[in-house]
């Protein structure tokens, strides 16, 4: 299990973003993180990755404190060093298992690995960043908005890759603004609201979550839209 206990995170002089968040994630499953803009999704991911230090709380993986060395993190925005080729970028990341077949991945994603990354499209950059996350073969994978910028084919490929990773026992945590992409590949979706996770939904309860999200949106904005139009 990946267990988060009573996590408190706040930025300097600002209000608390995570307010005693607790969560248990079964290993070898795909976990989605849903929440509105500003709910604290990226803060939670950054804290798990130990990018941000929590004021209180602990994170355990298989009953030991989670180490950054166990995590691969795909950021929502992908930046690359200027004048670097895709192949150079990938070669920086160590291969945990010798079976990582760079040419095979290049064929699958149609990436021009010997070209400078500055010439890549948004989707190509996302795919390259994803390959860099896959290469070290870490047991915990955090994918922040992995579907952003991908075309239809690549979105489907990514869903297939996630399923394959799950079958190999990886624990995957995904965020996405596209609800359908979460329901399509997750075993659980954790709903983050006001700095805590009030409820986690297993696959069979996804329609319930959708209804709850819709009712919150309608409550918050329904009257405003009627006033505007």
């Amino acid at each position: 299990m990946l267990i988060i206990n009573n996590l408190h995170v706040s930025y300097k002089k600002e209000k608390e973003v995570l307010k005693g968040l607790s969560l248990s994630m079964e290993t070898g499953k795909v976990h989605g993180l849903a929440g509105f803009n500003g709910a604290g999704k990226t803060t939670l991911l950054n804290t798990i990755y130990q990018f941000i230090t929590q004021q209180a709380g602990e994170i355990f993986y298989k009953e030991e404190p989670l180490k950054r060395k166990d995590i691969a993190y795909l950021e929502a925005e992908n930046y690359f060093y200027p004048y670097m080729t895709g192949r150079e970028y990938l070669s920086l990341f160590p291969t945990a298992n010798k079976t990582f077949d760079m040419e095979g991945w290049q064929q699958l994603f149609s990436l021009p690995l010997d070209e400078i990354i500055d010439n890549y499209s948004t989707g190509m950059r996302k795919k390259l960043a994803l390959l860099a996350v896959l290469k070290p073969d870490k047991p915990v994978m955090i994918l922040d908005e992995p579907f952003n910028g991908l075309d239809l084919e690549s979105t489907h490929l990514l869903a297939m890759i996630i399923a394959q990773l799950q079958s190999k026992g990886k624990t995957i945590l995904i965020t996405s603004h596209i609800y359908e992409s979460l329901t399509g590949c997750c075993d659980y979706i954790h709903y983050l609201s006001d700095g805590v996770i009030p409820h986690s939904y297993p696959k069979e309860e996804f329609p319930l979550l959708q209804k709850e999200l819709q009712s919150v949106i309608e409550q918050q904005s329904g009257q405003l839209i009627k006033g505007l139009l």
Partner: protein
Amino acid sequence: MKFRLVQGGKFVRDMPFPYLLLLLGIVGIGLYALHLFIQDIGKGLICGGVLLGVVCLIHFRRKDFHFIFLASEHPWQVFFMDYLLLSFPILILEIMQGFWFISVGIIVGCLAISFLKQPFHRNVKGFPVPGIIPHNAFEIRANIRRYGGWLMLLYASAYAGLFFPYASLACLWFYTIFFLASFGDCESIAILNVSEKPAGAFLRNKIGLNLRLYLITIVPVCLFYTLIRPGDWWLALGFLVLASLNVALFIVAKYAVYEPNKRDANTQISLGLSVFSILVPFLAPLPLLLLTRYYIKAHRNLNSYLYAYH
């Protein structure tokens, strides 16, 4: 025109007074030298031609081209005004020498350049990188791709210059400046984390790798220089030491201000002075002092990113 004047005013106001004086001094000396140079029509034409060449280069390399092209109804007016402002001092110098027709030619040239279009999609290719440079020296590889032509030219000139006093070392100095440009951009957090090492070990590895690659290229030239001019051995040795200190300094200075994906991290004037320390003897202790200061800052700054690897 008004916008550019406001921008210029802000630039002057934001600049510390001593640097402003220094800048004015450099510009003043440059203009006076040009005034002395433009004595006959031939030299006036050369000056005008070079200016138009520079304007053309700027036009095709400017990064705001597409923004201005889309945002302005008459983009050529914006470009023309920029180039006119840039050419203004030389236009005045040409008129002062009585070459008003060259000034008219420059204005017409600037106008014509303003109508030229940049291609919307341009594939960056870059200079080929030698295979012997390891992939983890990605800053050097990227820099060769960007400035490889200059680096090759200066390196070849350093060998050719062995037969003239000091020429070799002067070329190596310029080569070092281009080499130091490797450490201008900050990498992403994904690349920073690749080594999975704490701050101290990370910095030592980084300096060791890049310094080794720098010295591999520069030591042979210094050795040949010493063989040809044995009396100047101390010059070559001094150059090697100060240039190496500068390489280490530029690396730690980058990490002292490191923020993921930040561009142009090494723009501090103190670093510029440090590069000059190779040429000016009384500035010689500066790189060592700065290196100590920036190493401490870099260590502290990197700790906030790499503390998880302690």
